[in-house]
């Protein structure tokens, strides 16, 4: 079995920035002292080691807050967006359960949001899973219609991890505020990619991830609004750190890294957005100029600059990934998941199962170059053309046979 290329092989070009990002070297630089000489416990109040660690953690907290228009006092450190989502959804639901028992979320949310909601259903809560439109966006009228007297929380992600579409957060926030419902948003893929402002967007809780924004893995944050106050039940009990909402000693170097990653994102977002948009358009045009029957999944404009999700009709996604092993990408094909079901996100958009099997997610980011993308586009054109020459479905399509008209024996 071959897991890794031999040492003399070049590493594949990384085009999977929605899965994770490399830590920015500037982030690593700011973290390093907190592993060694400044190793103190930020909760130690009685000596300099604790004070300097606490100062660093508080500075990071302010940097995170600044990126989303929040006060440092509203930022809770966690282990990542999965924990933040669990804390926000379960914590709020459990705190207000005597008064309200209904939660609204969306079918294209990340698994950790959906699974937290499933867990609450077992505890007796009611959950509405809203569908999305063909472009991947939430229908605001449907959302408004789903809100009940008993609705405590609406949870809608800022940016989808597979298709990169941006939900109308300000409109959802305004709707929730007018109905007296808390609004939580999983912004793991949105922070640092699009401008966010918890005041303007009337967001009550926001989940943040470190490793999606060139920060370290193993750290994230949850924004919890103070005015009007949002209360939640802690999911981890202990020494009462993070205002009692999340016990446990803070990992100073990781917190510092997340803070610096946020500071860099804020300083560079405008330029980075322009650069990535230009790169993505160049790549997309090059691919579609060289190949027929390539379809974009998700809204064409309302998406982050670093994401493309393309279906290469008549070529199965896992086979395609194997054929472009010079690229590190991911696919919505069934064969890449343990479940053998194709992407539930693409299915929720109404993408045909057979087209979902042919999708690739191409994620570009801070360290992607034009030369890499030109190479990737040309390689995709060559390999898709080759695989189509092996594909009985492509041959049928060329002969004008409608593949849907055939009685397939589904296995």
């Amino acid at each position, binding site marked *: 079995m071959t897991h890794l290329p031999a040492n003399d092989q070049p590493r594949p070009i990384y085009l999977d920035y929605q899965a994770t990002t490399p830590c920015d070297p500037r982030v690593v630089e700011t973290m390093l002292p907190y592993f060694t000489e400044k190793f103190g416990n930020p909760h130690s109040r009685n000596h300099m080691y604790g004070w300097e660690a606490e100062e660093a953690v508080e500075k990071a907290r302010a940097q995170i807050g600044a990126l989303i228009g929040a006060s440092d006092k509203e930022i809770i450190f966690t282990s990542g967006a999965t924990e933040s989502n669990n804390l926000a959804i379960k914590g709020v639901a459990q705190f207000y359960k005597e008064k309200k028992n209904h939660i609204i979320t969306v079918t294209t949310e990340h698994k950790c949001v959906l699974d937290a909601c499933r867990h609450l259903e077992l505890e007796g809560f009611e959950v509405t899973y809203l569908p999305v439109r063909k472009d991947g966006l939430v229908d605001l009228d449907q959302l408004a219609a789903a809100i009940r007297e008993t609705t405590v929380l609406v949870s809608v992600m800022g940016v989808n991890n597979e298709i990169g579409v941006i939900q109308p957060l300000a409109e959802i926030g305004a709707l929730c505020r007018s109905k007296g419902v808390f609004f939580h948003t999983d912004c793991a893929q949105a922070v640092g990619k699009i401008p966010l402002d918890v005041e303007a967007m009337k967001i009550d809780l926001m989940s943040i991830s470190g490793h999606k924004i060139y920060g370290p893995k193993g750290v994230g944050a949850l924004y919890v609004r103070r005015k009007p106050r949002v209360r939640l039940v802690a999911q981890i009990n202990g020494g009462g750190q993070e205002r009692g909402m999340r016990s446990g000693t803070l990992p100073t170097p990781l917190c510092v890294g997340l803070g610096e990653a946020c500071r860099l994102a804020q300083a560079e977002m405008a330029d980075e957005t322009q650069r990535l948009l230009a790169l993505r358009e160049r790549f997309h045009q090059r691919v579609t100029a060289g190949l027929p029957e390539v379809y974009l999944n998700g809204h064409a404009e309302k998406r982050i600059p670093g994401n493309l999700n393309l279906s290469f009709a008549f070529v*199965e996604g896992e*086979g395609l990934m194997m054929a472009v092993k010079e690229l590190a990408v991911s696919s919505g094909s069934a*064969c890449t998941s343990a479940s*053998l079901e194709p992407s539930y996100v693409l299915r929720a958009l109404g993408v045909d199962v057979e087209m979902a099997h042919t999708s690739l997610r191409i994620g570009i980011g801070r360290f992607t170059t034009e030369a890499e993308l030109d190479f990737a586009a040309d390689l995709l054109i060559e390999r898709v053309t080759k695989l189509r020459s*092996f594909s009985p479905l492509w041959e049928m399509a060329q002969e004008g046979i409608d593949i849907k008209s055939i009685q*397939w*024996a589904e296995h």
Partner: protein
Amino acid sequence: MSYSDKVIDHFEHPRNVGSLNKEDAHVGTGLVGAPACGDVMRLQIQVSPDGIIEDAKFKTFGCGSAIASSSLVTEWVKGKTLDEAATIKNTEIAEHLALPPVKIHCSVLAEDAIKAAIADYKAKHSPSKDGQAAE
């Protein structure tokens, strides 16, 4: 997903990709799988008057293991009689390619493709419609 060297070899250098004339009386065509399941195999055999498979071609929509399984069976069926070809088992294909458990269905599909191609050929050469006998 990790692949064996044999899967990679068949995937990168597939044997016998292509089409035979499905209207030809000497050609049997098997089309199995479904696009919605992520794999479709078409295996074609050309049979000599004395009942030997003298040529085989495939086209497959699917993952690397599906393409490799169909490439492999085109090599295996060539030179065999129809009866011999019909004895090829998915377990032999899976073992030869060292397919992991989640890819066993690719080898099952390849076996089905052989049987379907043989059945199609036999149906063309039988006055009665006993082509289903091979199923």
